[in-house]
Every structure is written in structure tokens, then in C-alpha cells.
């Protein structure tokens, strides 16, 4: 009798002390490269969604090949994303913090590959 009463009290306390179920908060960077003049829905568009990790020391590497001579490397730690272009003229690097992504981030710019092709780059904290 006493054991049953205690069990009931324990279950009641556990049920009342909790809130809604939650998963991990996540921050993401959406990257899309589209050949200038083409539609972003074109098959020539290249995109990736990189989610920032949660643990200290975790790193998530991603890469997007633009054409034979140019690529973008994405490296995400839990506090920032580093975007580095190779084989392009102009912008070579961009760092975006988690704070920026959590506040809602969007940017667009153009890079040109060594082969002469221009690409419209879109960055966003919302993956499509």
C-alpha cells in the first residue's frame, strides 16, 4: 500500500516537472552557386545545406564543385562557418558566425572561375 502510494507520487512529480519534448537547436548555412544568366532552378545550379555541429571540437566539412577549375569549401564548427573559394577571381573567403545565422542571414555575390564562367552565389540561414 505504501509502495503504491510512493510510486504514484513519483510518477506525478515526474510528469509535472517536465516541459515539451525538444530536439537540439540547429543553425544552418544554405549555399547555392548558379551560372550567371541561368535560373536558380537550373540543373547547372549547385547547392548544399550545412548544419553547424554542437560539440566542442566538432567540424563538418562540405564542398561544392563549380566547374573543373573552381570550387567552394565549407567548414562548419559549432560557432562559425568558413567558406573558401579556390580557382576563382575576387572573393576567396567568407566567415559567418552562428550568431549571424541564428539572427537570419542572407547574402548574395558573384565569383568568376578561372575558366571565365561567372557564378551567382546565394547564402542563407534557411535551407531550401
Amino acid at each position, binding site marked *: 500500500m505504501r509502495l503504491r502510494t510512493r510510486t504514484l507520487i513519483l510518477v506525478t512529480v*515526474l*510528469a509535472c516537472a*517536465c*516541459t*515539451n*519534448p*525538444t*530536439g*537540439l*537547436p*540547429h543553425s544552418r548555412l544554405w549555399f547555392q552557386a548558379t551560372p550567371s544568366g541561368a535560373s536558380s532552378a537550373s540543373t547547372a545550379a549547385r547547392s548544399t545545406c550545412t548544419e553547424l*555541429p*554542437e*560539440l*566542442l*571540437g*566538432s*567540424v*563538418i*566539412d*562540405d564542398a561544392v564543385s563549380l566547374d573543373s577549375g573552381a570550387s567552394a569549401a565549407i*567548414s562548419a564548427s*559549432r560557432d562559425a562557418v568558413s567558406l573558401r573559394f579556390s580557382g576563382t577571381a575576387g572573393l576567396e573567403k567568407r566567415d559567418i558566425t552562428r550568431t549571424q545565422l541564428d539572427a537570419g542571414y542572407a547574402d548574395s555575390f558573384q565569383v568568376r572561375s578561372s575558366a571565365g564562367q561567372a557564378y551567382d552565389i546565394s547564402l542563407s540561414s534557411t535551407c531550401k
Partner: protein
Amino acid sequence: MVPVGDASGAPGDALHQRYSDQFGMLLGLGAKVSEAIYVGTYFGGSFGTNGGDTRVDRACTDRDDNLQNDISCGSGTLRAGLELEYHFQPAARVDPWLGYGIGPEFATQSITDHVRAVDETTSVTGWEYARLAGGINFRLARAVGLAPTLEGSLGQFNTSRTELNSVKVHDAAIPDRALHGWITVGLRLILFP
């Protein structure tokens, strides 16, 4: 085992921020090459939970209402190596000793989001350059002894690997390395002391 020092040179990346205090076991196998000198190998492992990092700790504290752990966290270590001990009174019932060991080290931490089915694991490997130990063997019987032991290790992690749902997403050398250590208080059971 209590973590001290830094996992890497990155700001805020102290070992205790990644890993909690650990509970573990170490097995050793070796022989006395003289009355006073023991040479052997060791292999050990430990387990714990997340370290003191506030963000991870907040995530790992379960707050759901379904009586299940929606976000679980864990950590652990493995180590192996060679060790040398000098025994000051090898024939006595009470025998103080000092030891030195060296060998590779592995540590891992994980966070699993059961709601989104995402498992993130980051493992580091390196070397324990010095595993200094001291203790007192109490010979309880001819073939059995007990030894309260204090150990301190000094090591460095060299490579880091991250996996998402068991798929490798990063595997590289750690660019800014740092020294770390583990302080261990334990009790050794010794066969044929």
C-alpha cells in the same frame, strides 16, 4: 579520472569542457625483470558523460514530458602502452613504488538527438607522453596484493574526426594543439605481486 588542461588550443576548449570525470578500468600485464623493476603493458578504458560546456550541458539535460531521454550525451577514453615501475621494497609486505608509462590515447564524445535522429560524435587521438604513477602495494597473500594508486598523465591530441550518423564528415590534424592530462585515483588488484 579528472580531466585537466586543454583538448586543443582553441579558446574555451578545456578538456573538462568536453569530458566529464571518468570512471574506468585499467588492465596490466607484465613481469619483473629484476627484484625491483617491473616492465609491462597496459590497456584501459573509461566512460563518462558530457563535460562542463554550458551549451552542451543544457542540451543534454532532459526536459521532455515523455519520460524518455530525447537528447543523450556521452564520453569515453581508451589508452594503451608500455609501463615501467620501480619497487622500493619488493620483498616486503608493504611495497611503495613509482611508475612511468607511455602510449597512444583515444577520447570520444557524442550527442544524440533522438527527436531528429541525429548522432554527432567527435573523436580525438594522440599520445600520453608521460603517465606517472605511484602507489603502495599491500601484499595480502602470497599471490594477491592491493595497491591504492595515484596517477597523473600528460598528453596531446593530434588528430580529430567528426561523424554524423556514423558517416565521416571531418578527419584532420588538429591545427592548434595543446597539452592535457588526467588525474586518477584508483585501487589496483595485483596478482603475483
